[in-house]
């Protein structure tokens, strides 16, 4: 199993039946592929839809139905559409149960930077600031390191997405939870040691006596 699949499978276990979930473009989108049996959730798309699903077959595209990345999608029975104010009212008003987002950096306090590298990458924040500030639970889905450098830092150096801490961080090595006392190491990926995790992590981790393996 590759690292990204580990992340997606582990995050899928966080989703509860009947909840509203927003998956970011890229790796977070793949979480939908690993929903446990018996769990069905409503996927929201920021462009104004609850009930997105993959396009059933090529040739069935509707020119008016796309995801927030502009790709043509399908919709489940019972889906509904609305304008952008309503869509972000769901997000900002705390009606969105879970958002899964990527990270450039995330730190010991659970603060996330995922929208800009000043001078290098200025794509705009899109819905990221609203999602991190407003969703009930924010789950970060990220590879633990980039080009050999830890993405789990003592303190973010890039501009923050929000001052609201994320709820959970899932990487191909570990599950970590920001707490009042610091960043708690909750689970190890299958076969990964605590030492490996600590070596790949710039942030200080609180390491309990027993760190269980992810059950994926």
């Amino acid at each position, binding site marked *: 199993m590759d690292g990204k699949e580990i992340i997606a499978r582990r995050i899928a276990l966080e989703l509860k*039946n009947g909840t509203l979930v927003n998956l970011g473009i890229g790796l977070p989108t793949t979480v939908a592929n690993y929903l446990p049996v018996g769990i*069905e959730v409503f996927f929201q798309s920021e462009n104004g839809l609850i*009930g997105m699903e993959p396009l059933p077959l090529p040739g069935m595209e509707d020119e008016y139905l796309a995801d927030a990345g502009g790709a043509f999608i399908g919709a*489940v*029975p*019972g*889906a*509904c559409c609305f304008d952008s104010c309503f869509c972000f009212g769901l997000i900002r008003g705390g009606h969105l149960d879970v958002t899964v987002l990527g990270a450039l950096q995330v730190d010991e306090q659970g603060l996330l930077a995922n929208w800009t590298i000043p001078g290098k990458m200025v794509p705009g924040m899109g819905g990221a600031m609203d999602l991190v500030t407003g969703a009930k639970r924010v789950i970060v889905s990220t590879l633990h390191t980039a080009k050999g450098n830890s993405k789990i830092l003592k303190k973010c150096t890039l501009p923050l997405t929000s001052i609201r801490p994320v709820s959970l961080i899932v990487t191909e090595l570990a599950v970590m939870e920001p707490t009042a006392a610091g960043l708690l190491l909750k689970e190890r990926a299958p076969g990964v040691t605590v030492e490996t995790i600590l070596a790949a992590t710039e942030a200080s981790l609180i390491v309990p006596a027993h760190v269980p393996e992810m059950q994926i």
Partner: protein
Amino acid sequence: MSINLKKIIRLAEAVERIPGGASLLIGGFLGIGSPHRLIGELVRQGRRNLTVIANDTARPGLGIGRLIDAKAVKRLIVSHIGTNPETQRQMIAGETEVTLCPQGTLAERIRAGGYGLGGVLTATGVGTVLAATARQIEIEGKMFLLELPLAADFALIAAHRADYLGNLDYALTARNFNPIMAMAGVVVIAEAAEIVPVGVIPPDEVVTPCILVDYLVAREQVNGR
């Protein structure tokens, strides 16, 4: 999409979840589009000391007026009570505390409560007696009142149709405050004139998405069945 059957609930059970002293957002405009079954059951179960946020109290015997008749309401936030002499009597007698709020401001305050906004900046009420009740904020040389968000423990919603998932639509002027309130209740209980299979309400016609609805009241018996 799986159907959450736990969401479908009998009328009495729905109202049993609402404790005395609770705050309620109640849809409707002079009784049109009010959740008449939920209101009737609140009266039947003798609920008291309620805080009610609504457009109005209709008239005695109608809509929210039935809660007023039953002396179930301790505190009221509404835009007008002119159609209900009993509400006026209770206000003057000090039995019910009434806060009056311009209709547009009331709607926006409820919306702000449901949308996570810090408040509403409105020109309505500036320079009037209302100005004493709100912060004033000057923005680019113009004065606005900062009106605070409203939310409540429960939102009681009257829909036209609900599908099995709890997606709702509304008919004509019975829409009014219902969709706004469905965003602002911690627990949202909806009744509907019709309950229809999923897909009968197309995606573009759903006004209140099912994920906002915590409980949908099962229909009454029809034709003895």
